[in-house]
């Protein structure tokens, strides 16, 4: 299949693996930011192939995994209301809040619909005025423009039966917060290619200068990842710290300006609670005051539930690279995809789920 097979060519992958091994004088520690990259690294055996040459830390880039439990609890709470239909993306449904997941709520009678685009949720609200529709908006800067478009659309239709739980998060503040920790181990970053497709990568220049860490914009297919890793290792071996784009077939330095304008128009930056990390300054997006009539927290006056924190999941240590998923005492025992203790075991982008699925030694 075009645009796919050429980036999975075993011969080309072997050449890149050989080159990475050849130029590495020591084992370097890189962080891939995005969960999609983690998944691909494990599925295609790249992490295992590079053992001893490059250690890959699986960063916080699964938006489902870092969604605050309080937001999931609130979504479940609304979904259980008689006249509410809660809509969201598929892989949000299995993620446990502190009182169960949306799927659990559905089993208990809540009305929940999977949508493939927030615009589908707008259409549902438009054609069913008798129900209140809530879209649970999660994701990084990649999905934020689509939600923004849906909010504008809802505004255009003057929908009074549609609102949003906005849980969008921003990648770069999370990277900042990671490298500000005194014990961080990251020597270079593979930046998430799809986020850069939307946001561009100019904003990483000051980051690279300030922290003196290489940042390489990287895609998702095996050859994309190997090229990104090779570029990082080359810089590290030369004692350089530069911003590089190794996903140029998709990413432009300025990104998608129309999408950025839309994000600007609808949202403002806010501090945000990240599951496993705590409060990240400027780590999220919230609706601007002029759009707050679409904020589900304004529309519904449900009493805020206290998050029951069982504190068993060690996802923070996984996402900061202090332990690999199989080193967690719960991995594969009390925590597995059927009964997860934390989000990284649930989502198809989660690091623990990727190890559970693909890593031979772990299983």
């Amino acid at each position, binding site marked *: 299949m075009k645009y796919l097979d050429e980036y999975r060519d075993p011969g080309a992958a072997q050449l890149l693996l050989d080159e990475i091994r050849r130029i590495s004088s020591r084992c370097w520690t890189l962080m891939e930011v995005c969960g*999609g990259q983690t998944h691909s690294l494990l599925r295609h055996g*790249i992490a295992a192939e590079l053992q001893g040459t490059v250690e890959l830390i699986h960063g916080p880039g699964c938006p489902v995994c870092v969604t605050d439990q309080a937001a999931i609890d609130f979504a479940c709470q609304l979904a259980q209301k008689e006249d509410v239909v809660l809509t969201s993306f598929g892989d949000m449904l299995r993620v446990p809040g502190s009182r169960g997941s949306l799927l659990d709520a559905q089993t208990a009678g809540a009305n929940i619909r999977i949508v493939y685009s927030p615009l589908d949720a707008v259409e549902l609200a438009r054609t069913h005025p008798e129900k209140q529709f809530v879209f649970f908006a999660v994701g990084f800067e990649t999905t934020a423009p689509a939600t923004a478009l849906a909010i504008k659309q809802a505004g255009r239709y003057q929908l009074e039966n549609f609102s949003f739980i906005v849980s969008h998060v921003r990648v770069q503040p999370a990277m900042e917060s990671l490298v500000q920790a005194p014990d961080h181990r990251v020597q270079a970053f593979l930046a998430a290619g799809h986020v850069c497709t939307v946001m561009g990568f100019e904003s990483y220049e000051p980051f690279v200068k300030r922290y003196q860490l290489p940042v390489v914009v990287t895609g998702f297919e095996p050859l994309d990842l190997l090229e990104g890793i090779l570029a990082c290792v080359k810089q590290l071996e030369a004692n350089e710290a530069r911003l590089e784009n190794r996903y140029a077939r998709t990413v432009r330095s300025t990104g998608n300006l129309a999408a950025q304008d839309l994000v600007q128009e609808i949202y403002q930056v806010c501090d945000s609670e990240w599951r496993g990390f705590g409060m990240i300054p400027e780590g999220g997006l919230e609706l601007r005051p002029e759009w707050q009539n679409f904020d589900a927290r304004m529309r519904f006056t449900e009493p805020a539930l206290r998050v029951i924190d069982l504190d068993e999941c060690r996802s923070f240590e996984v996402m900061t690279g202090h332990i690999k998923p199989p080193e967690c005492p719960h991995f594969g025992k009390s925590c597995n995809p059927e009964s997860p203790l934390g989000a990284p075991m649930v989502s198809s982008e989660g690091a623990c789920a990727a190890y559970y*699925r693909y890593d031979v030694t772990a299983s």
Partner: protein
Amino acid sequence: MMPDKEKNEFASWQVNCPVSVTANADCVTLAHGEGGRLSRKLIQDRIIHSLKNEFLIAMNDAAHLPEIQGPLALTTDSFVVSPLFFPGGDIGSLSVFGTVNDLAVSGAKPLWITLSLIIEEGLPLVVLDRILESIACAAQETGVKIVAGDTKVVPRGAADGLFINTTGVGELIKPIPPGPQTLQEKDELIVSGPIGRHGIAILTVREELAMEPVPQSDCGSLIRPVKRLREELGDQIRCLRDATRGGVAAVMHEWAEACGLTLSLDERSIPVSPEVRGVCELLGLDPLHVANEGTMLIAVKQGAGAAAVEVLQSLAETAEPRLIGTVNPRGIAPVTVRRTLGPEQPLDDPLGSPLPRIC
């Protein structure tokens, strides 16, 4: 309960469906299920008219079936697919092929099936007629007779348009494939065609994903391929199974559990159509976990795989068969897969329905 989207489509029925019950109503009403004149008319004019055979025309409480020699196979299955019509098939053809295929892969020659319809009040009669026509065609194609049936009508909201149950009886033909518990090391695994077509066809139409070309379901009969395989390979066949819900992965796990060995697949040899692969890549699904409705897995003794592929290749229903794996000593996991790149990996047993990923 039908999802809201379908409810919206079905809302148009209300306009056409008068509250008062008349024989001319153009949709199914609760009165059609009450056993009186309307019930008889529905059964006579539509169901028996479409499916007519000597057993149904007799209208007995139970069908009187002729004596047959040898042991029987019996299977039952319920069909609740939404939407009722999908690219490549509909609930009617599916309900016949599904049951007939279960009999065929179990080693039986399908003979008779029963047909139970649970109809949601308001189903347009033209829809019912189309589905009955489809059932009749599928029965004719597979050579089975629909010998008994039942019709119930439930209030709006209590079903999703139409549910169908079919029960099938077949005559076991010797030598019966001995089953997955007899799998041995070095046995060979074959798939009869491109995988994941039914699941992706349903997903595409249900979620209105604008795919071009529209993915088509593989919904179809496996009788002829099974018959030919058994004629040509005889006792070389260990077991056969149509890979329905849970896809290839679910069948592989069942077989691995039955024999205690490892079933190792090679992704590069597993046929996947560009449409199915495209949707799966886009949504983060694994075609090995996606449902099929006219594609089967076959395990044969060492060395018989090529012959099985050759037999299947000569038939229109199974034109793209492939040898996809082998049976090995129990290794890292019950089922493993070697992908285009990387080492042999465990293939997980599907957990619930596949959920599309966010990005």
